[in-house]
C-alpha cells in the first residue's frame, strides 16, 4: 500500500522508544503513528515528519520518561535507616554491654589516634623547611682497618672543596657550629640563649621566616639574627633591628634580623641565635686542617643534581686524600632521614628512631585490635539473644548479604559513638601525652586530610570489629533457630576463646616488655659509678671575666662554706670528650683507640672523690705536674703496660709521665663498658666543678653561689647544672620507651579486662538456671565461683605461656644493644603470670560471685 511507504524519521522513533516508559510505549507509539499517518495524507510527508519530530521532543517530559532502571526506584536508604535504628535500640537495651563496647573501643581509638599524631609528628620532622627534600647533612665515614664509624662532625675545608669542585650539584652550602650557650647582653638585660655560627647561605637554605630584616643581612660579619622569642625577651615590643647587643661580654654585634623560632620538630629547635661564620670570634673560620673535625655541614642540592644517593657516591672521596692514617669518606644524609635514621652501620644509614615508629605503630594497631576483639566477643556471645531476629528476618525474605550489612551498620554505630568519645579523650589526654613524649603536638582540627583519615579509620574499625559477628550471625539457619532447637555448639566458643587468648597474649607481652625496660634502667642507675654525683655542680666558664676571677671566686665560696671542693675541668663528668692521638711505649702501630681526655686542675680528684689505686694524685702546684698524666684502670689494661708508673706517653705532640692510676668511673653511657680515660693538668678548661658542702642546705648554698658568681661575673646570668641531673638525661630515651610501653600495657590490659568482664557477665547470665539447680542440690558458693572462673583463668594461663617466649625473644634482642644489662630472671615472668591471674580473677569474680550469690528461687521460679 501507499501508506506503508511513508514512515516517520527512524532516529526519532528509536529515541522515543528508548526514553518512553515501557508501560505507555505501545499506546503512545500507536498515537504517534496514527497522527503521523493522518498528517502524511493531509499535508505531505515532509511536514508530517517535522511535526512527528516536534511531538517526540514534546513527549520527552518527566511523566513519560522511563525511570533509569526498569523497576521503581528502590534504593535501600530506608533499610539503612532501619538498621541504624535497630542498632541504636540494641545499644540502649543492654546498657552495660554497650558501655563496655563503646568505652573499650573509644579507648583503643584514642590510643591509636595519639600514636597516629605522634607518628605524624615524627615523620614530618624538619618538613618546616621549604626545601627539606633537597637538603642534606654531610656525614663522615671513618674506616680504620675493619670498622667504619659514622659521625656528623666534619672538617671545615670540606665546605670549600665541595663548593669549588661540584658547583653544579650544590646550590648552597653552610657550615654550622654546634649549639652552644651564649650570654646575650643588651643594656641592663642579660639572657642566656643557644647559638650557632652559620655561613651566609644558611638563612636561604633553611628558608628562615624573617619577621624583620632580610635573609641576606647575615653576610655582614658583625650582624646577628635572633629568634622571635629572644627578641621579645630582650626588646619587648621595641624594634630590635640595628640595635647593638653584646654576646658573652666580649663580642659587639648588631641585630640584623628576627626569625620565627624553629618549631620543636626541627633539627634546629632551641637555636635562638644565628651568628655569622666570618666573624673573628669564630675560631673555626680560620681552621684549615682536614683532620680537625669540629663542625657540621649542610648542603642544598641543586634542582638538576638528581638523586642524593648517586651524588653521595660521586663526592664521597673528597676528604680521602687529605687524611693519612684512616680512610675517610663523606656521605650525604638527606635531611628527611636525618631524624628517623640516626644510626649507621658500615657507613650507611641503618635505622634508629624509625624503629620506634614501627614499634609504636604496631602497638597502636594492637591496642585498637584488642578493642575490636571486645566488640566481636560480646556480639557473638550475645548471638543467642539475636538468633530469633535473624531467623525471622531470613524467613520474611532477607538475604544473607542484607543481614551482613545490618550487623556491619550496627558496628558502625558503635564505632561512630566510640569515635566521638575518643576525640574527646584524645583532646583531654594530649597535654599529658605531650609531656610524656616531650612533644608539642596538636589535633589538626582544620585539616581536611585529618578528617578524611579519621573517617577512613572509623570505617576500618567498624568493619574490622563488625565483620566476624556479621558473618557469624548471618549464617544462622532460620528453621533451627525458629524451632527452638538451636544451640550454640561447643565449638562456637572456640573462636571467642582464641580471641581472648590473643588479647591477653598482647597485653601480657607488653607488660613484660615494660617491666624489663624499667629493670634495665634501674640496673644502670644502680651501677657503681666510682664517685658520687650527689651535690656535684658544674658552671660553664662563659665569659673571660669568670676565667680571670676564678681564684677569687673559689676563695670566697670556700670561705662561705658553700662548697667543699672546687676545681676546673675541660668537660662535665657527665660527658667527657675523646681523642685517639695517644702514643705509648709498645703500642701496636695499627691500633686506634679513642681515649677520653680531660684537662683538670689538681683539685679535680678531690672534688670528684676518685680513688687512686696506684701512684699518686696530682700535686697541688699544677706547674710542677704539667707533664703528669693519670689514667684509669681500663686505660692501663688496654695499653697493656706492666709497670705503668713512670712510663712516658705522647699526646698532642707532648710527652707526659704516668704518675697515677684511678679506679674506673662511669662517665659516659650508663650502659656501655668503662672507657679508657686520661687526665692532664694542662690545656683548656671550660667548666667549673664544685662539690656542695653536704652540711649546708642546697637552696641556701645556691643562693650564696649566685651572689658570689654575679659579683665577679656581672655580665652573665648565673647558670649551673647538677651533674646527676645531666647524667639522668642519658636515661631519657629508655625512660620514654619504658613509660610509653607501660602506658600502653596498662591500657591494653584494661581493655582486655573490660572484654573479660563483659564475657563473664554474659556467661553468668546464661547459666543462671544451671547455677540455681546446682545451688539447690547443695553446691557451695565457692564451688560455683571456682567453676565459673576456672575457664577464664585457663585462658589467661594459656596466654601467659604464649606470650612469655615472645616477650623473652623480643626483650633479649632489645637488651643486646646494651653492654651493661640486666638479666631476665624467671621471677619477672612468675610475677607477671601471678599478676595476670589475680587481675583476671578480680575482673571475673565480680560477676561470678554475684551469680553464685543470687537466690536460686528467683532464677528457677519462672519458666
Amino acid at each position, binding site marked *: 500500500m501507499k*501508506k506503508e511507504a511513508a514512515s516517520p524519521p527512524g532516529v526519532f522513533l528509536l529515541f522515543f522508544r528508548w526514553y518512553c516508559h515501557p508501560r*505507555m510505549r*505501545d*499506546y*503512545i*507509539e*500507536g*498515537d*504517534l*503513528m*496514527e*497522527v503521523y*499517518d493522518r498528517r502524511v495524507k493531509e499535508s505531505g510527508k515532509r511536514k508530517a515528519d517535522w511535526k512527528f519530530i*516536534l*511531538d517526540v521532543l*514534546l*513527549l*520527552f*517530559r*518527566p*511523566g*513519560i520518561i522511563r525511570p533509569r532502571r526498569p523497576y521503581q526506584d528502590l534504593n535501600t536508604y530506608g533499610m539503612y535507616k532501619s538498621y541504624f535504628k535497630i542498632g541504636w535500640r540494641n545499644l540502649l537495651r543492654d546498657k552495660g554491654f554497650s558501655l563496655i563496647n563503646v568505652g573499650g573501643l573509644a579507648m583503643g581509638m584514642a590510643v591509636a589516634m595519639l600514636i597516629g599524631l605522634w607518628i605524624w609528628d615524627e615523620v614530618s620532622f624538619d618538613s618546616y623547611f621549604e626545601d627539606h627534600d633537597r637538603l642534606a647533612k654531610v656525614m663522615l665515614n671513618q674506616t680504620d682497618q675493619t670498622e667504619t664509624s659514622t659521625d656528623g662532625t666534619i672538617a671545615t675545608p670540606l665546605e670549600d672543596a665541595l663548593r669549588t669542585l661540584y658547583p653544579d650539584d650544590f646550590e648552597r652550602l653552610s657550615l654550622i657550629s654546634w649549639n652552644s650557650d651564649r650570654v646575650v647582653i643588651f643594656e641592663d638585660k642579660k639572657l642566656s640563649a643557644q647559638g650557632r655560627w652559620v655561613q651566609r647561605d644558611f638563612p636561604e637554605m633553611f628558608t628562615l621566616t624573617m619577621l624583620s630584616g632580610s635573609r641576606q643581612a647575615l653576610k655582614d660579619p658583625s650582624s646577628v639574627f635572633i629568634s622571635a622569642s629572644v627578641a621579645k625577651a630582650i626588646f619587648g615590643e621595641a624594634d630590635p633591628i640595628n640595635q647593638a647587643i653584646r654576646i658573652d661580654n666580649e663580642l659587639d654585634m648588631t641585630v640584623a634580623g628576627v626569625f620565627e623560632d624553629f618549631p620543636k620538630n626541627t633539627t634546629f629547635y632551641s637555636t635562638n641565635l644565628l651568628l655569622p661564620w666570618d666573624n673573628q670570634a669564630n675560631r673555626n673560620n680560620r681552621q684549615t686542617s682536614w683532620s680537625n673535625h669540629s663542625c657540621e655541614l649542610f648542603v642544598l642540592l641543586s634542582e638538576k643534581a638528581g638523586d642524593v644517593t648517586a651524588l653521595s657516591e660521586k663526592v664521597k672521596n673528597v676528604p680521602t686524600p687529605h687524611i693519612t692514617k684512616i680512610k675517610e669518606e663523606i656521605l650525604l644524609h638527606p635531611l628527611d632521614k636525618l631524624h628517623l635514621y640516626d644510626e649507621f652501620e658500615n657507613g650507611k644509614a641503618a635505622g634508629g628512631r624509625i624503629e620506634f615508629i614501627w614499634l609504636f605503630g604496631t602497638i597502636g594497631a594492637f591496642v585498637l585490635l584488642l578493642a575490636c576483639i571486645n566488640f566481636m566477643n560480646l556480639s557473638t556471645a550475645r548471638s543467642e539473644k539475636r538468633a530469633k531476629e535473624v531467623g525471622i528476618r531470613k524467613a520474611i525474605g532477607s538475604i544473607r548479604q542484607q543481614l551482613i550489612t545490618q550487623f556491619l551498620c550496627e558496628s558502625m554505630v558503635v564505632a561512630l559513638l566510640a569515635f566521638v568519645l575518643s576525640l574527646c579523650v584524645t583532646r583531654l589526654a594530649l597535654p599529658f601525652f605531650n609531656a610524656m613524649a616531650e612533644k608539642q603536638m596538636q589535633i589538626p582540627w582544620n585539616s581536611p586530610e585529618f578528617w578524611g583519615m579519621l573517617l577512613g579509620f572509623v570505617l576500618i574499625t567498624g568493619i574490622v570489629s563488625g565483620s566476624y559477628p556479621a558473618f557469624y550471625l548471618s549464617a544462622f539457619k532460620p528453621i533451627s533457630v525458629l524451632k527452638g532447637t538451636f544451640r550454640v555448639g561447643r565449638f562456637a566458643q572456640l573462636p571467642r576463646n582464641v580471641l581472648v587468648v590473643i588479647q591477653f597474649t598482647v597485653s601480657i607481652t607488653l607488660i613484660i616488655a615494660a617491666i624489663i625496660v624499667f629493670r634495665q634502667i634501674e640496673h644502670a642507675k644502680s651501677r657503681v659509678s666510682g664517685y658520687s654525683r650527689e651535690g656535684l655542680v658544674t658552671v660553664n666558664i662563659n665569659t673571660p671575666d669568670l676565667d680571670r676571677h676564678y681564684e677569687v671566686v673559689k676563695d670566697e665560696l670556700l670561705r662561705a662554706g658553700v662548697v667543699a671542693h672546687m676545681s676546673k675541668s675541660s668537660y662535665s663528668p657527665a660527658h667527657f670528650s675523646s681523642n685517639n692521638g695517644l702514643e705509648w711505649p709498645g703500642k701496636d702501630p695499627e691500633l686506634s683507640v679513642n681515649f677520653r681526655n680531660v684537662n683538670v686542675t689538681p683539685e679535680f680528684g678531690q672534688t670528684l672523690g676518685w680513688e687512686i689505686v696506684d701512684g699518686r694524685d696530682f700535686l697541688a702546684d699544677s706547674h710542677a705536674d704539667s707533664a703528669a698524666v693519670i689514667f684509669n684502670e681500663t686505660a692501663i689494661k688496654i695499653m697493656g703496660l706492666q709497670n705503668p708508673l713512670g712510663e712516658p706517653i705522647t699526646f698532642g705532640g707532648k710527652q707526659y709521665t704516668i704518675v697515677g692510676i684511678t679506679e674506673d668511673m662511669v662517665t659516659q653511657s650508663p650502659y656501655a663498658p668503662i672507657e679508657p680515660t686520661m687526665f692532664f693538668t694542662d690545656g683548656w678548661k671550660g667548666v667549673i666543678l664544685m662539690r656542695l658542702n653536704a652540711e649546708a642546705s642546697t637552696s641556701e648554698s645556691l643562693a650564696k653561689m649566685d651572689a658570689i658568681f654575679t659579683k665577679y661575673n656581672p655580665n652573665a646570668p648565673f647558670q649551673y647544672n647538677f651533674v646527676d641531673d645531666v647524667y639522668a638525661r642519658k636515661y631519657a630515651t629508655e625512660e620514654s620507651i619504658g613509660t610509653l610501653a607501660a602506658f600502653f600495657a596498662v591500657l591494653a590490659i584494661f581493655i582486655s579486662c573490660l572484654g573479660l568482664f563483659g564475657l563473664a557477665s554474659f556467661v553468668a547470665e546464661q547459666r543462671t538456671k544451671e547455677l540455681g539447680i546446682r545451688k539447690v542440690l547443695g553446691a557451695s558458693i565457692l564451688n560455683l565461683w571456682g567453676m565459673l572462673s576456672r575457664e577464664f583463668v585457663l585462658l589467661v594461663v594459656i596466654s601467659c605461656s604464649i606470650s612469655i617466649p615472645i616477650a623473652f625473644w623480643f626483650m633479649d634482642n632489645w637488651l643486646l644493644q646494651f653492654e651493661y644489662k640486666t638479666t631476665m630472671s624467671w621471677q619477672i615472668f612468675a610475677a607477671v603470670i601471678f599478676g595476670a591471674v589475680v587481675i583476671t580473677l578480680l575482673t571475673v569474680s565480680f560477676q561470678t560471685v554475684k551469680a553464685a550469690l543470687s537466690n536460686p528461687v528467683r532464677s528457677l521460679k519462672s519458666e
Partner: protein
Amino acid sequence: MKDFQLGEFEEIVILTVGILNQSAYSVGIKDEIELRLSRTVSMGALHTALNRLEEKGYLKSHSGESTEERAGRPRRYFEITALGKKAMQHAKDTRDELWSAIPKTLWQANLAGI
C-alpha cells in the same frame, strides 16, 4: 480526601473524556479538544495529563483493539471513575459557587462602562 485536585488542563481533558464517553482514547481526545476549543494540544501534555488523572484515580483505562493505521499498536481507552465524577462535580460546584458569589452589580458596572 475532600480535596479534589484538578488543574485547568486536566479539567478540560476529563470533561472531553466524558463527552467522548466509552470511545475516549488519546488521539480522539486530542482531536475533540482541538475541535471544540480551537487550541492545539501537544501529545506530551495530553499523555502527561492522562497519566496524572489516572494516578489520582479519576480515570481508568483499558487496552483496545489494534488497528493497521496505528502500526499494530493498541488504543488505550479511558473512562471516568466514580471518584473522577465526584471531582468533576466538585470542580463545577466550586466554580458555580464562586460565580454566584460575584455581585450582579459587577456586570452592570461593566455595562455602564461601555
